[in-house]
C-alpha cells in the first residue's frame, strides 16, 4: 500500500503510474472496440479480469457457484451498460464497481448459506503433522479474527490486503469516501493485530 512507501520507493511508484497509465489507455481502446460490438476485445477484457473478479465475488458470497454466477452476471451487465463507460476510462475500476454492487445486492437478497463455511484446506505439502497442525491452527486463528470483524471492514481489509486494491478503488466500488475506507482499514487492521500479532509472536 502506498501509505507505507517512502522516498526510495518514489521512483518505483512513478514507474508503476506510467505502467498503469499505459494499461488504462489500452483498456480505453478495448472498451471503444467493445462499444462497437467487437467480440475479440470483449474476450480480452474477460480473460484479463476473470480470475480477480471471481476472487472478489467469492469474498462477497463465500460460495463457489454463487461467485461464478455473480462474475458472469457482472460481465454481461457491464456489456449491457458498455455505452455508459466513458471514453478514456479504464475498464477495471468501472467493472469492479458493477461487480461489487451486484454482489452486495445479491448478499442482501439471499439468506446466505453461511458466511463462514470455510473448511480447512487440504494439506498442501509434505511437512510434518506437527507443522501442519500449527499452520492449521494459525489459519484458524486468522479466520476467526477476520470473521470477528464487521462485514464491511472484513471486505475492505480483504480487498486491500489480499487483492491489492487501493483505498480509492475500494471507495469507488463500495460507494464510500476514500477517507471512510481508510478509517475502516485502519480499525480492521488494528483489530486483527490485537488478535494475531501477540499470538504469532509467541509462536515464533
Amino acid at each position, binding site marked *: 500500500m502506498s501509505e507505507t512507501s517512502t522516498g526510495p520507493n518514489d521512483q518505483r511508484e512513478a514507474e508503476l503510474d506510467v505502467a498503469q497509465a499505459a494499461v488504462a489507455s489500452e483498456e480505453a481502446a478495448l472498451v471503444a472496440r467493445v462499444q462497437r460490438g467487437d467480440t475479440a476485445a470483449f474476450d480480452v477484457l474477460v480473460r484479463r479480469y*476473470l480470475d480477480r473478479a471471481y476472487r472478489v465475488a467469492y469474498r462477497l458470497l463465500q460460495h463457489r457457484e454463487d461467485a*461464478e454466477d455473480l462474475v458472469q452476471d457482472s460481465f454481461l451487465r457491464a456489456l449491457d451498460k458498455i455505452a455508459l463507460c466513458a471514453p478514456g476510462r479504464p475498464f477495471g475500476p468501472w467493472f469492479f464497481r458493477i461487480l461489487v454492487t451486484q454482489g452486495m445486492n445479491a448478499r442482501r437478497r439471499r439468506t446466505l448459506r453461511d458466511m463462514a463455511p470455510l473448511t480447512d484446506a487440504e494439506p498442501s505439502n509434505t511437512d510434518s503433522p506437527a507443522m501442519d497442525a500449527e499452520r492449521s491452527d494459525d489459519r484458524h486463528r486468522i479466520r476467526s479474527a477476520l470473521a470477528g470483524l464487521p462485514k464491511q471492514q472484513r471486505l475492505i*481489509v480483504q480487498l486491500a490486503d489480499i487483492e491489492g486494491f487501493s483505498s480509492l478503488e475500494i471507495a469507488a466500488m463500495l460507494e464510500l469516501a476514500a477517507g471512510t475506507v481508510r478509517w475502516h482499514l485502519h480499525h480492521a487492521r488494528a483489530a486483527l493485530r490485537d488478535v494475531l500479532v501477540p499470538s504469532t509472536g509467541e509462536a515464533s
Partner: protein
Amino acid sequence: MNGDEEIGSMLRAMDDAEPGVRLDDPRAAVLHARIMERAARRLAELRQQHTWWDYAASWSRAAVPVGVAASILAGALWYRLPVQSDTERAATTAAVGGDAAQRAVHVALAGGVSTEMLDSLVGPVTRDALVAQLLGGAR
C-alpha cells in the same frame, strides 16, 4: 516488516490455503465460455447499432453539401417561376370569365402560349381545326 504488512502477509497466507477462493483452470475455461456464449447476442446487437450509426453518420457528412445544392436549385427555380406564371395567369383569368375557350385561343394567338404548348395539349393535327372552329364560332 511493520504491523500492517505483517497482517497483510498473514491474510494472504491464509487466503492461499483456502480452497474455494481460486478459480482453477478448468472452471475458469467453463466460466469464460459461458460468458462469451451469453454475450454473443448483445455483441451482435452492438455491431448492428454501430452499422446503423455509421450509415447515418456518413449521410450526415453528405447532408450539408446536398442541402446547399438543393437550396441553390430551389432558389433558381423560384426566380424563373414568375415569368411563366404571368402568361399562365392571363390564360387562367380568360378561362374563368365568359367564353373560356375563345379567350384562351386569343391569348394563345396573341403569343402568350406557344404552339408547342397547344401541340402538347391537343396534338398537331387537330390544333388547326380546333383553332378554326373556335374562331369561326366566335365570329
